């Protein structure tokens, strides 16, 4: 029979120290592994459920995780983090239901367009695409211009028209450069877009279906 009272006295303090050190050492290691542990259990559970749902749909949960992490790093309260992640979650699901199985990057960009204020139906023009063509730039410029004050309807019409005409990535980038430069010089955002959209050359819709070097369509990068 081994009892504590029969343990050698010299053995008790080291045993206590080892137990305490193991416990105290393991907890920070776990926290370092997963920064989301800083959320309260209820918020963490809500976000985990949304991430699980995305995974069940075959989608990446990286954007939701990143949004929650950003909120934690910025010191935002847990309720606001959950609300923001919920909105992102809803927009990702909506974009997925419209666009179907596109890459995570494009889905993120499409969700950002919805967040900026575009209507889900306006994403419909991007449902069909040619092989090797990416709509990342179109979505990025679209969301940015709405955020800079260009009316949502005008932006949606202009971007959809350019896309359907076969505009390439460089065209969208040039459009963004020109419009944001005009806006920063004091022009009315809507007028700036209308002026520049007339100059933007479209491309024939029957573009050869080749994948250019560096194409990122359908890439699951995270």
């Amino acid at each position, binding site marked *: 029979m081994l009892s504590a*009272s029969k343990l050698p006295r010299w053995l008790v303090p080291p045993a206590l120290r080892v137990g305490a050190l193991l416990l105290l050492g393991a907890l920070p290691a776990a926290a370092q*592994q997963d920064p989301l542990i800083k959320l309260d259990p209820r918020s963490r559970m809500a976000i985990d459920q949304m991430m699980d749902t995305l995974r069940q749909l075959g989608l990446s949960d990286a954007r939701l995780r990143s949004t929650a992490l950003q909120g934690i790093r910025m010191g935002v309260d847990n309720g606001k983090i959950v609300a923001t992640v919920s909105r992102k979650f809803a927009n990702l699901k909506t974009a997925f239901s419209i666009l179907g199985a596109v890459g995570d990057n494009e889905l993120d960009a499409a969700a950002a367009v919805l967040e900026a204020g575009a209507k889900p139906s306006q994403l419909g023009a991007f449902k069909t695409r040619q092989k090797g063509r990416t709509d990342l730039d179109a979505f990025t*410029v679209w969301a940015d211009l709405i955020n800079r004050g260009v009316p949502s309807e005008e932006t949606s019409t202009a971007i959809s028209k350019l896309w359907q005409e076969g505009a390439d990535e460089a065209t969208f980038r040039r459009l963004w450069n020109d419009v944001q430069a005009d806006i920063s010089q004091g022009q009315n955002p809507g007028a700036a877009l209308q002026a520049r959209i007339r100059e933007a050359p479209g491309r024939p819709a029957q573009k050869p279906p080749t994948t250019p070097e560096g194409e990122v369509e359908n890439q699951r*990068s995270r």
Partner: protein
Amino acid sequence: MTDSELHPYVELIAREARRPVVSDPAARARVMAAVRAEPIPTRLPVWLRAFQPRAISLSPAVGGLLAAGLVGIGVAVGSFALDRGGHLAGQATVAERPPVSPKVSDTVFVIVAPQAAKVSLVGDFNDWDASKLPLVRVPNSGLWKVAVPLPAGRHLYQFVVDGNWVADPGAPVAGDNGFGRPNSVRIVRTGSAL
């Protein structure tokens, strides 16, 4: 009460009990011979005795600390076995398949902040951790820059200038991130970025 008043059966028992006992002189020799005939029990080696069942009792304090230690070991092992996304290390979900051909290229981030004492880059590529990617001031200018190897794709980021989160004035914004400040967008390809 006298003996004569006892019941005959009791008297019989008492008489038997009073009879002197005569032991067999050879009995002691027989008992000792039987003991010597028994095999002598051998002492088990230490390693075998460790597997013999025995009861152990501990005080609540020592028992609690040992249990805490075991829990600590479990948490440590679990945290190493699981990756940051909560999945077993090396186990990719359908949505987290590695890219077919990850193209990583150095992407340069620049911001003009002449009065700043410290500038860093935060984004979805570094878990928004301001301590991971500090920008370096270009000598004799208000320019700060850093080159970051990024895979092709769409990346959200901001600069942290002296503790304040700011969007990149030279990049498109992704809109309100819900936290009051818009994120900037960088689309990385091989050799070019929006």
